[in-house]
């Protein structure tokens, strides 16, 4: 049984902390998430009991850490349903996407080839493709969103042609919160022998993920958005694709051999992508995070979040002074603005006012700087829920939003 009160006990950040002197209400889960005790313990256990670099052969301590590190690959593989050798540890979603653009893109794209993305993509799923296009003279094109902000299979189909080599989309947009039908999109993309890259930064933490079922070619995500430590992420790729890719970074740990005649022999996948000392303690923390999420159950998490999201949207809709941009969101990411005398109050002013009441929400374009084309505003306030948020926290948000006027926003500095 899903018991939010019990769950909240697991999070030190939810034990009476404050923001500007008021009880902390953390609604910025799209940016990063809070960490449960088990994750914190996994990291500190590395520091306190098993510090050493991973390196299998030499002494017991290092061997044990290495085993725990490698075990995480299995845990991730089980979590997203792939083989463990298809799990590459990166420093985050951004690193993963750059690795794919560089490692797959440079070898496979040529002039006039096409890369399809959308205007809703995060900067990290946009700029690496711009760069790849600039180098290879390929073109980046935008799959149009439908009026609810979704990527429909029809729109993907319309954009596909034999020049398309890569399609890269978020499974869930970090501003619009809708779930793309990745499975159906993959089917279309594969008809043209293109590869489908899925930015799972906002989906993997919230809904059950099965890469076999989705049949995407790559899936990337960050631990810190799913109760794990910062600066560790995953690049899943189908093995035969990973095999042919060049690493973005070279160095220690990813080569078997090199010599002064410039012969270089790289390790096998996934190791060849993990140059330098990996984020060992964070990988161990990711393992604990996945264990934690699985114990609660991804379906329970998704159900609870859906209820809370529905409640939040219905309450927001009751407010005259709030516009919700994505009332049909599938996931607990709600983008809105507050009006005063019919004029939008600048998002940062609203966020500052909310902060004064303990509420932590983010304003801005949320790194999706092309999205104004769809939203017709270039900045919103975002309420991003996670499974530890409560109805009471949402009620507090609603209550404060009711009093959000330009005057009150000014008053915070008087």
């Amino acid at each position: 049984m899903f018991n939010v009160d019990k769950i909240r006990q697991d999070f030190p950040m939810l034990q009476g902390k404050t923001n500007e002197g008021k009880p902390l209400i953390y609604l910025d889960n799209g940016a990063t998430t809070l960490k449960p005790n088990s994750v914190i313990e996994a990291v500190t256990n590395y520091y306190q009991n098993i510090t050493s670099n991973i390196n299998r052969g030499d002494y017991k301590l290092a061997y044990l850490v290495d085993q725990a590190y490698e075990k995480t690959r299995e845990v991730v593989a089980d979590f997203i349903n792939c083989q463990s050798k298809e799990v590459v540890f990166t420093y985050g979603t951004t690193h993963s996407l750059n690795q794919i653009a560089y490692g797959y893109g440079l070898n496979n794209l040529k002039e006039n080839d096409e890369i399809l993305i959308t205007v809703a993509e995060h900067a990290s799923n946009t700029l690496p493709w711009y760069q790849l296009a600039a180098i290879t003279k390929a073109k980046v094109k935008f799959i149009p969103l439908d009026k609810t902000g979704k990527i429909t299979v029809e729109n993907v189909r319309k954009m596909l042609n034999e020049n398309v080599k890569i399609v890269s989309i978020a499974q869930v947009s970090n501003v619009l919160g809708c779930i793309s039908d990745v499975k159906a999109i993959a089917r279309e993309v594969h008809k043209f022998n293109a590869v489908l890259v899925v930015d799972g930064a906002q989906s993997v933490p919230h809904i059950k993920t099965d890469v076999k079922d989705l049949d995407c070619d790559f899936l990337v995500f960050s631990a810190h958005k799913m109760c794990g430590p910062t600066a560790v992420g995953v690049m899943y790729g189908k093995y035969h694709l990973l095999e042919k890719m060049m690493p973005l970074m070279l160095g220690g740990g990813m080569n078997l051999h090199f010599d002064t005649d410039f012969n270089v022999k790289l390790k096998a996948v996934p190791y060849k992508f993990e140059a330098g000392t990996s984020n060992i303690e964070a990988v161990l923390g990711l393992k604990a995070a996945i264990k934690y999420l699985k114990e609660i159950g991804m379906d329970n998490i998704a159900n609870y979040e859906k209820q809370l999201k529905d409640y939040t949207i219905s309450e927001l809709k009751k407010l005259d002074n709030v516009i919700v941009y994505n009332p049909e969101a599938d996931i607990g990411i709600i983008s809105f603005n507050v009006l005063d005398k019919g004029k939008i109050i600048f998002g940062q002013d609203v966020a500052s006012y909310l902060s004064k009441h303990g509420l932590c929400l983010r304003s801005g374009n949320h790194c999706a700087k092309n999205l104004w084309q769809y939203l017709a505003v270039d900045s919103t306030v975002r309420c991003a829920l996670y499974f530890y948020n409560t109805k009471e926290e949402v009620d507090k948000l609603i209550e404060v939003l009711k009093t959000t006027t330009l005057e009150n926003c000014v008053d915070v500095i008087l």
Partner: protein
Amino acid sequence: MNSIKDNPILKREIMMDHYESPRNFQLIDDNSYRQIHVYSQSCQDDIKLQVLINNDIIEDIRFEGNACVIATASTSIMTELIKGCSIKQAKEIIENYFNMINQKEYGENILKEAVVFESVGRQVNRISCATLSWNGLKQLLNENEES
């Protein structure tokens, strides 16, 4: 005259007024103006400033942009204060403004309406909003001297 500083209602009115009807708003397409584009590295504040300097006098100053109430009002108030000043006077005003923000001594009479930002430090994260354009102007004036 009542001190603005001690009158929160007046302070709020001044700020709202400058936000809703910003002074010297709208850039001009004229090469004799020096221009600077200032933006926050983190939030959305994004402002362009122009100044026209002749014989060490700031004959005109203009701005345009998309920014929060604090950044917008502080820019508008700044343009009113600065317009017509000599560079020396302008620098004195700027110095006083930063002194105020940093809780040091400053001349209330020199800053006039700009004193509404006296307690912006109550929300420390807003200091950058209240100083964005002022930093930009400082840079413009320094560049002027170097050239």
